[in-house]
């Protein structure tokens, strides 16, 4: 069943009323709103009671019609004053007396009907369908079905563009972070409640703080980009707190503006037998806490770069549990020799007799028992991070294994790391 409300010049009120009954709403025209009321009989009872409930809620003169299909409800609301409930099968008879200009067909077709002397829905509905199809085509058949009350279609649902944003201008600028967090907690709670009500989450939070006029910068911007959508108010507040503690605003705050970017939430099908993985909200807060004291570039998932440059890697975000679970492959079997890297490489004094025979450095010191090499490697000669080196694997008499290299540009020896 569908309900249609017609009241010229009152679209916001009509929409507000429709929202109380259904999330499936069509703005049929600037003065008519149609919405789906299927399932409401369990709450209100028969369609007549639903119509009365709409009438009570709207609180102003409006035409209300309820019918089995949207087009019939729209035409009845436009043409029949007051409240009208059309029983199934009675559509054609109820609409038959209505003037054809309420049909909403294209203007050219309306003029043609005038020329033919067809004035009402009933007259148009009575025409033979084959004749209508021959003269007016598929469109004519559709409008005749509307006039007969037998047209079937889905609602053209409106897309609400809601701004998930809160702002507050403060009478007295706040110089401390604590009262700011208090306000942010309130804003986030409201935004998260709104997002949850619309089955949404956020993957980006933007905080714009307008500072006092005397400040060096007029505004302080904080943007939180989350790897996965979330609506956990506490987690978002903690992330904002940590970000503001690391990078506090330089002056007292006059105005706060908080915006959440709405996105569809992450839906994960949990698996009883799959291994556990960290909850995205919890791990984000934990990583932010650790980042706070180890530094931004010192936490993450390493990604090896496609280069021969020594120690070529970047830090990236930890993989999404679902995506990561799809590419499990490791053909490595057995234990592999590992390498431990000194960052930066330790300078060394190396005595050579065609090969290294003695080394002195902060990390390795002593006579070289075995030395294997040299291996030459160079690259990036066209850039500033050029390297050109001679590498050796050496074993000290103590049994410690190191990789050392000589920078051929500066003729300096370094200990790059040890094998373990």
């Amino acid at each position, binding site marked *: 069943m569908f309900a249609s409300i017609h009241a010229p010049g009152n679209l916001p009120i009509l929409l507000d009323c429709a929202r109380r009954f259904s999330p499936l709403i069509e703005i049929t025209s600037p003065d008519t709103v149609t919405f789906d009321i299927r399932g409401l009989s369990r709450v209100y009872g028969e369609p007549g009671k639903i119509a009365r409930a709409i009438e009570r809620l709207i609180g102003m003169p409006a035409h209300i019609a309820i019918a089995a299909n949207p087009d019939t409800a729209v035409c009845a609301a436009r043409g029949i004053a007051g409240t009208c409930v059309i029983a199934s099968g009675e559509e054609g008879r109820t609409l038959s007396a209505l003037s054809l200009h309420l049909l909403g067909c294209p203007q050219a077709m309306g003029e043609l009907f005038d020329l033919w002397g067809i004035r009402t829905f009933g007259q148009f509905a009575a025409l033979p369908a084959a004749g209508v199809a021959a003269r007016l085509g598929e469109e004519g058949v559709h409008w005749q079905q509307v006039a007969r009350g037998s047209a079937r279609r889905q609602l053209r649902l409106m897309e609400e563009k809601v701004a998930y944003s809160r702002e507050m201008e403060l009478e007295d600028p706040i110089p401390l972070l604590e009262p700011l967090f208090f306000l942010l907690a309130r804003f986030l709670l409201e935004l998260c409640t709104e997002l949850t009500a619309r089955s949404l989450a956020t993957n980006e939070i933007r905080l714009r703080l307008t500072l006092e006029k005397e400040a060096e910068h007029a505004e302080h911007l904080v943007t939180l980009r989350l790897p996965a959508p979330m609506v956990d108010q506490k987690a978002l507040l903690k992330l904002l707190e940590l970000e503001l503690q690391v990078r506090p605003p330089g002056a007292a705050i006059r105005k706060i503006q908080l915006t959440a970017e709405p996105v569809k939430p992450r839906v994960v099908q949990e698996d009883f037998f*799959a*291994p*556990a*993985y*960290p*909850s995205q909200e*919890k*791990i984000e807060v*934990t*990583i932010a*806490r*650790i980042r706070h*004291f*180890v*530094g931004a570039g*010192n*936490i*993450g*998932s*390493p*990604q*090896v770069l496609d280069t021969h440059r020594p*120690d*070529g*890697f970047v*830090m*990236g975000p*930890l*993989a999404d*549990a679902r995506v*990561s*679970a799809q590419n*499990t492959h*490791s*053909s*490595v079997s*057995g*234990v*592999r*020799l*590992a*390498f*431990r*890297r*000194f*960052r930066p490489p330790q300078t060394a004094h190396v005595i050579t007799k065609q090969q290294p025979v003695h080394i002195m450095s902060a990390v390795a010191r002593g006579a070289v028992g*075995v030395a*294997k*090499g040299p291996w030459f490697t160079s690259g990036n000669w066209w850039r500033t991070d050029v390297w050109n080196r001679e590498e050796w*694997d050496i*074993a000290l008499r*103590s*049994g*410690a*294994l190191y990789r050392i290299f000589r920078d051929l540009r500066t003729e300096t020896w370094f200990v790059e*790391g*040890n*094998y*373990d």
Partner: protein
Amino acid sequence: MSALAIFQSLTLSHGPTPISTGIGIHVPRATLTELTGGVSSGRTAVMLSLLQQVTRQEEFCVLVDVQDTFDPASGAAAGIELSRLLWVRCGGNVDHALKATDLLVRAGGFGMVMLDVSGTSAAALRRIPIATWFRLRHGAEHNGAALVVTGERVGAGSSAKLQLGVRQKEILWSAKLLRGIRSIAESTKRGGPAGVCFDSRSR
């Protein structure tokens, strides 16, 4: 076979399954394990093998690296799925490393949390109160993660359920190449697993 024996053989094992080190020794979950060994003993090879085993089982793991010595290329060559590894580089700060380990152990959801204290001075390690190790172990017990602390020496004492020591037996060379290290891993605590000899090879 008696009916009882058949029933017992069919009963599913329960509780957390231990993690294989790849050398025939298993590391228990939900507790603290100590993995020690000197320079070039093969200890890091065992450490990478453990991380590989965990990521291969589609689990996430953490490496808290006190001295920032982990080599991602070496890790990838050992078969670690790096996208499931969270690496925390502490730049030599033991306090930061302990704090990060505590937070991550308590966050839950990780199959293994590895704290690597290699290269840290004995004095700095001695300053860690025994209560800290108990706290970490308690966090691991609560969340089910295998907490492994590795280094030349650790000092977790009785907090560690398993103490594994790795020592070098010989270095394997070929004509002009370093082929690997032959090592022996054995429990340094009474009642632990028997010693195992293993090779960590470059290829």
